[in-house]
């Protein structure tokens, strides 16, 4: 029992990070049909912004983290949209897929070339001790990750459903043409989703880097798993990304513990293929619907 609780908490923490990354994916797709193959690298990069600010700028960790967050929002949000997505999206989905693959290579190689090729320790903003709850040993950082993910998702849901801007974004996602006629600044709404995506990946980066260390190749599996989470849950809904992310995180931890550590990486892939063949709209998704 204690084992199961332990694995569940670890799985929810992993899943929370997957969910944050997957939500960003879904948001970009919903509002602008942008598929970002560099999403995993987007999670890898912000940690290096923070490290660079600390090492080169001599800033303290909290200040560097704030700066890293802002730089991420500008570079991976604003500049990503303006410089890469805007000129290419008119050619269709495939060129954008290719470009974001190239962007992933660009980010990975730049970090490797200009910062470091080996894993860098990343300071944690919280205690790294363990708690014992009813015989189960639970890492405090897992609880922190779960808490941050829950707060972030709740805030995002409130923003999308409860505020004027959020509802305008939903309108943009559902029918950009009609939204434009109704006087909604569609372009700005799309830009907001890019900024939100950048914020989410920065958050995920700060949560995951203390555990796995900051390394240029960290994004490879993370991006793939986050996308699979989005598809499994249902690509056209934010809550699909949440369900998919948590499910993958939990399954991943249980498989590694009870079945096969060697093939833990294969489980999401089997799930993906099964979902695509038997329920392409995802577990909680609905067919042919678009909403954020």
């Amino acid at each position, binding site marked *: 029992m204690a084992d199961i609780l332990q694995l569940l908490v670890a799985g929810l923490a992993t899943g929370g990070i997957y969910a944050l990354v997957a939500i960003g994916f879904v948001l970009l797709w919903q509002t602008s049909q942008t598929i970002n193959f560099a999403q995993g690298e987007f999670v890898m990069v912000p940690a290096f912004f923070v490290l660079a600010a600390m090492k080169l700028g001599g800033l303290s960790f909290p200040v560097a983290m704030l700066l890293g967050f802002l730089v991420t929002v500008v570079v991976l949000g604003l500049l990503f949209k303006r410089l890469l997505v805007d000129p290419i999206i008119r050619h269709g989905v495939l060129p954008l897929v*290719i470009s974001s*693959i190239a*962007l992933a290579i660009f980010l990975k190689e730049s970090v490797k070339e200009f910062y470091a090729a080996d894993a860098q320790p990343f300071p944690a903003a919280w205690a790294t001790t363990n708690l014992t709850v009813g015989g189960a040993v639970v890492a405090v950082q897992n609880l922190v990750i779960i808490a941050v993910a829950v707060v972030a998702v709740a805030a995002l849901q409130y923003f999308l459903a409860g505020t004027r801007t959020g509802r305008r974004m939903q309108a943009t996602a559902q029918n950009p043409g009609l939204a434009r006629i109704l006087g909604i600044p569609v372009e700005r709404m799309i830009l907001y989703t890019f900024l939100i995506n950048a914020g989410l990946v920065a958050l995920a980066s700060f949560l995951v880097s203390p555990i796995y260390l900051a390394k240029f190749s960290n994004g490879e599996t993370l991006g*793939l798993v986050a996308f699979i989470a989005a598809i499994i849950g249902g690509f056209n809904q934010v809550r699909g990304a949440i369900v998919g992310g948590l499910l993958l995180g939990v399954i991943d931890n249980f498989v590694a513990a009870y079945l096969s550590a060697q093939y833990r990486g*294969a489980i999401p892939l089997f799930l993906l293929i099964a979902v695509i063949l038997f329920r*392409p709209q995802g577990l909680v998704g609905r067919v042919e619907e678009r909403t954020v």
Partner: protein
Amino acid sequence: MTRARTARVIAAAVVVAAIVAPFTLKPYGIYLLSLWAVMTIAAIGLNLTLGYAGQISLAQASFVGIGAYTAAILTTQGWPLAAAFVLAMALCFAIGWLLGYPALRVQHHYLAFVTLSFATLVFLVLRNEEWLTKGVYGISGIPRPTVLGWSTQGPVDFYFFCLGVLALVSAATWWIIRSPWGRAFMALRENPIRASSLGVDTRRYTLMAFAIGSVLGGISGVLYAPLVQFIEPNAFALGLSFNLLLMVIVGGSGYFYGPFLGAVVSVLLPEWLRFSEGLYLILYAVFVMILMAYFPSGLLGLAEGLIKRAGKPAPGPALPTRDGDAS
């Protein structure tokens, strides 16, 4: 001069260069040329699947891997390379056919990720099934074949062997593209619903596009193993799949000569730009992003655009990328 004739003259010049070049190069240069020929075969296969039939695949490296491991396992146990060719082609055809099934349900980015997942799966099998593949230790001492009494042990001999296979593959592909099958593939790419309403069996041709493209990946792998003589799973990881995809796109997807040019950019250029070391990949990535922004049809599309601008109207293949919204 018409476009077709220009292309033919350039192609003839390249063939002559490819035959003369090894006699002027050091062994490492010959190795690179052989690698170019081998990678071009895999890229031609992907160009059939992606460029002509419009089905994106990020799993081409897996088929190169399946071919390479088939060749390595069989030839190190004394079987002839011909047996490896037959088995690898059959295996890749069957697995490629199966990989086509998801493509019947989903398109574009979904398909990209499904094939990406498949590639990861193959990589895990190659790494973990040590009884068969020797896992991360790889397989070494892969012998080069003797073809009808002609030993291809030396680098130049093996290069000509690869070039010969490339010529056969090119001729077969040329024939496929011009056959009714090629037309059906292009119909599939341009407008699957219209194609199906005109009586094209889209289901069969989608699966066929994957199967044939995969067979060429397998052939490339069977040559790759004796070329490098040591293989390990990392060589066939996602990096190679991305690389092959970029070869097809950069050269010009849907153009017959696209993969040849793309493989030059991707295999030979990095070596010439060796002084820049890690910077090369960064520059390459920037180049691809700029190319996609301005010339999504690749270098050959760019060249065609320039010729057109010079005032010579020329009909070219329609862009495979203009099919708008996804799935």
